């Protein structure tokens, strides 16, 4: 009897937790397809009018463009800085290695409001406030650790002898990294880059400080929208953002799967 209860309790509990976690998402997605002119749940009927409205509104489209630009720049910066940093941290006994690692990871646990405020004060004299480059640089601080962690994990599981084999058969050490090591750890780097992109797209507080003026990324405009116009447009935007994240995770998942199929070491977390 008690065994059967136990056997039922675990799946039931899991299901309840899942419902609890997914409920807000489900509500937002359903509302975004609502036929009503205001936020109500459950929706009285379904339509795609809010998406149509969104895609014909130049303000929202402009915000989408800004978000994608900032996200793309963040991803590129994080990758270009993070991959060499990961090589340096995992391959060479540079002095103060653990300190540097801790410093890079620290941005994951610094309260975002503090990051936003200090970046704002730092940016004003540099003229970086209200620039896309400024926000991308700010988001890179938070995106970098994801790339570094994932790249270090991939490097650890990659066989060093592969690089040696390339070098002894005539490749310069740099060329060996480019031709052999990078393709092998690429899925791991990609997972890190995807995380960096997603955190940039979803980040609000730093964006409010750095790019909260006339030109707004989606997250900031969404925040403003929640406070003023209460119609399902914002639900449609949120659904779009969730969709973007799901898509990005799916890409990372496919990359992982492909690397496993090719017999390469699995990438990070």
């Amino acid at each position, binding site marked *: 009897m008690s065994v059967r209860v136990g056997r039922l309790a675990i799946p039931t509990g899991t299901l309840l937790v899942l419902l609890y976690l997914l409920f807000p998402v489900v509500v937002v997605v359903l509302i975004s397809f609502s036929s009503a002119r205001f936020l109500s749940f459950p929706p009285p009927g379904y339509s795609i009018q809010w998406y149509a409205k969104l895609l014909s509104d130049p303000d929202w489209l402009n915000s989408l463009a800004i978000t994608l630009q900032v996200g793309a720049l963040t991803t590129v910066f994080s990758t270009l800085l993070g991959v060499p940093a990961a090589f340096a941290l995992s391959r060479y006994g540079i002095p103060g290695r653990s300190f540097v690692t801790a410093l890079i990871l620290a941005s994951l646990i610094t309260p975002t409001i503090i990051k936003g405020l200090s970046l704002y004060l730092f940016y004003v004299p540099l003229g970086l406030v209200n620039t896309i480059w400024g926000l991308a640089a700010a988001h890179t601080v938070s995106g970098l650790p994801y790339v570094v962690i994932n790249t270090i994990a991939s490097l650890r599981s990659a*066989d060093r*002898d*592969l690089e*040696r*084999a*390339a*070098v*002894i*058969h*005539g*490749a*310069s*050490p740099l*060329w*060996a990294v480019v031709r*052999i090591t990078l*393709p*092998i750890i690429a899925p791991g780097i990609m997972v890190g880059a995807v995380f960096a992109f997603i955190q940039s797209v979803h980040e609000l507080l730093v964006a409010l400080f750095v790019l909260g003026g006339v030109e707004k990324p989606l997250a900031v405009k969404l925040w403003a929208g929640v406070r003023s116009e209460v119609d399902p447009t914002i639900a449609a935007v949120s659904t779009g953002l969730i969709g973007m994240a799901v898509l990005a995770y799916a890409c990372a998942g496919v990359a992982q799967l492909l690397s496993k199929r*090719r*017999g*390469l070491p699995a990438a990070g977390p």
Partner: protein
Amino acid sequence: MAANVTPSRGAAVRIDRLRKTFGSAVAVDSISLDIPTGSFVTLLGPSGSGKTTTLNLIAGFLSPDAGSILFDGAIVSNVPTHKRNIGMVFQNYALFPHMTVFDNVGFPLKMRTKLTSAEARTRILETLALVELNGFEARYPRQLSGGQQQRVAMARALVSHPRLLLMDEPLGALDKKLREQMQFEIKNIHRSIGTTFVYVTHDQTEALTMSDLIVVMNYGKIEQAGTPRQLYETPENQFVADFLGGANLLPGTVAAVAADHFSVAVEGGFTVQVPRDRVAAKAGDAVSVLVRPEEVGVALTEDRQAGAECVAGTVTAVGYLGDSLKLEIAVAGIAIGAKLARARGFSIESGQRVFVSWPRASARLLLRSTR
């Protein structure tokens, strides 16, 4: 064919007082060694003997603390690994997982030569034929068996006709049958291309089967270097005697030195005669008498023959190996191993009294190592 391809004459490698330490551990302790051009040299030793470190120093993956390495008389210390024109087969093969067999084998050509793609193709197919792996060009390493991966690794190491081929325990991951087959194939490839081979292993059978020259290493030093026959038949110390093949080492003291033999009082209380050769021993020296197990004969009755030792003992262990019978016999408190070939129908049991004999000429005197 392009003129910038180095001809496949093997390099003569000289190692001169080479030393490498890791922290306080001395991995290679001032060794000197001459590797003749085109020879097959095996560095043999237990793990931690410095053989792999020596190989990595030749490859240039490590730089020595002292001493030098010369290829054909030229010091290579300042030549980076990728310009040393070496091929290498790694223990785990280290095939590039994201490249096909064709691209793996073609990699050194791309890096080192300016061959046109048609010339490269010809060379790659030739090399794959050498390792008997034609028809696998489009496969990826993960689609190959261990033995096939081993062949690809050989082909990749040889394709650019390097003057030196390094092999780091390349057969370690294969099963016994495949390993024995590959030993002969590697030897055949060596004979047909004339490149200098430096092979690292801890497997004495591999070393004996393939090498022109075996270098036995222990604790970063060279214990003895010589042909397989020299090392097996005339080892210079207990370590070499014990490491190559089975060895009975009977502890004793030199009792008398005659013109053609030593008389040795073995610790158990019997005296044996050992032929006198270049070993410089005098009466009173602590020595070991080496008797190979396959030289030992076992009989149920005493059968003293001229030129043979014969002592009585008790069988303590019997092992049936199929092609031979392995016995352990206690003679006056000393265990003597015997390996009897053609033992079909010969039944013997633990506890039986037997007579152990060996030809005097097969025994060898070794000074007891002071290390």
